[in-house]
């Protein structure tokens, strides 16, 4: 079958390039993590020393814990809000184009600058909190940025703000693919509102959900710019995320080896979640 051959031939570059540019380089990083590389890569083998250092570093441990907290908010909220917005937009609203654009626009703004806007908004003294106090709620405080335990959630706020529109777009694309006459059938069957959503619409948004997760999960792990501009990891190091740690070590502090080790640990963590999932799924497919 020549079509099939063409199709598979298209995949070969993907596989080769992917093998080299992603996994080849990942191996290189793995090798780096076993060396005493500082400012620049070196070939001096030090075994698992960098890992030992990494795992003992309280900053790294905190970063992982922060990732968990950040990730929970950053994945769940955009999914909920994005879906809600997509559904809202799907109600044949007038001005859909404008609304869609407004909701989506945060994606376009580079975080490097938007971070400043968010810092202002979340400023405990002069920001929105002050405005609320100005409206008469004198005791109102919103000082997550200043609180060790809450700074991560300040990151969540800005990150959710930025990505939600995109998740909305993903869901919207999915929603728009659902057969209208099937929805009509469901309406005739008496399904409206929440039940229509849960029983008929959501089950068909599976692929969109997968895509949204495909954006959100890696983005959570990759979040870096935002930390730099919004909190610089602070106060103290209370809002550091692994990517921030990784880049700071690898590039700012000239601890390439340590940075590489942290990258490898991240990869292994992702793998340890994704691999069982993939194996289970492949089993199920074979069974089906």
């Amino acid at each position, binding site marked *: 079958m020549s079509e099939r051959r063409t*199709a598979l031939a298209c995949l070969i570059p993907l596989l080769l*390039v992917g093998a080299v540019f992603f996994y080849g380089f990942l191996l290189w990083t793995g090798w780096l993590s076993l060396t005493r590389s500082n400012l620049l890569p070196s070939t001096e083998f030090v075994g698992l020393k960098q890992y030992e250092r990494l795992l003992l570093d309280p900053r790294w441990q905190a970063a992982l814990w922060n990732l968990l907290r950040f990730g929970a908010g950053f994945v769940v909220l955009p999914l909920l809000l994005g879906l809600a917005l997509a559904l809202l937009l799907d109600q044949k609203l007038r001005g859909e184009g404008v609304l869609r654009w407004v909701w989506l626009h945060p994606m376009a703004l580079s975080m490097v600058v938007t971070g400043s806007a968010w810092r202002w908004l979340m400023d405990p003294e002069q920001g929105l909190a002050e405005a609320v106090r100005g409206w008469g709620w004198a005791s109102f405080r919103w000082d997550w940025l200043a609180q060790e335990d809450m700074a991560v959630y300040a990151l969540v706020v800005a990150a959710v703000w930025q990505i939600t529109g995109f998740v909305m777009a993903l869901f919207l694309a999915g929603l728009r693919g659902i057969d209208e006459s099937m929805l009509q059938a469901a309406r005739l069957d008496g399904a409206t509102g929440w039940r229509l959503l849960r029983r008929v619409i959501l089950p068909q948004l599976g692929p969109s959900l997968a895509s949204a997760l495909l954006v959100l999960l890696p983005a959570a792990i990759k979040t870096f710019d935002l930390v730099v501009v919004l909190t610089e990891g602070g106060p103290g190091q209370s809002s550091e995320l692994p990517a921030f740690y990784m880049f700071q070590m690898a590039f700012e502090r000239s601890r390439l080896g340590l940075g590489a080790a942290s990258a490898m640990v991240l990869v292994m963590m992702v793998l340890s979640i994704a691999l069982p999932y993939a194996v289970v799924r492949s089993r199920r497919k074979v069974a089906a």
Partner: protein
Amino acid sequence: MKRLSLYLLAGLAAAVIALPLLLMLMNSFKGVAEAQQGFLSLPREPGLAAWRLAWQTLSGSFGISLMLAVPAVLLSALLAALNGFVLCKFRFRGERWVGLLLVLAFFLPIKVYLLPLAITMARLGLDRSLALLIAIHVIYSLPLALFFRNHFLAFPDELLQAARLDGAGFWRLLWRVVLPLSRPIFVVVLILQFTTIWNEYLFGLVFGPEDARPITAALAQLSAQTETGARAYPLEMAAALLAAAPTLVVYLLAGRHFTRGLVAGAVKG
């Protein structure tokens, strides 16, 4: 009544989401010192100085950024569509593993690949150029294929079969049948890609042509945090908005393609 509350809700969401944008706009009309004094106040003497300066600083970079972003985005989106199509609609051994490897590749920031890539390019003797930069962006966008794969799951196979019987080979199948019917997801990927590539600059500095710096490099320059220099917020805000303008335009244009019922009427059942 119900419609009204829907509109209220939508408006509220829009207002909340637009808040930072409004704040940025507001501050971009202020003087440097005024901005330093309070961010939430309305500009006392609104002026376009910051915008003028921003335009001066950035205007030179628009061209190069477009020359980079447009081909890189289109190429990577098309390639992603192609690969996603193959991954979704053709069975082959080990497809699950390819999928898994792609997913995994998505999880690392591409900055991780910067150094090995630099070494490799040096070994290969590839000089810095726009083409190289585009190629690199395209390569690191390969995992986007997964979006298309997910989307194609719902694509009616009967259409493919009909087209095959009509004599369409692989390419025409893709170009004439599959792509036109995947506009929404294509747009989504386009948005993601344009944003990513437009806003990326480190790779641009390393692999891009010597003297041409992408717009975001110029922008980042304006807004870098330093220990010793004070920041000019109005300029930053104006520049950020200016730099985002093409992306915003892309969103506006692309948005039209979120059409409903693209496959309506295709199959019965």
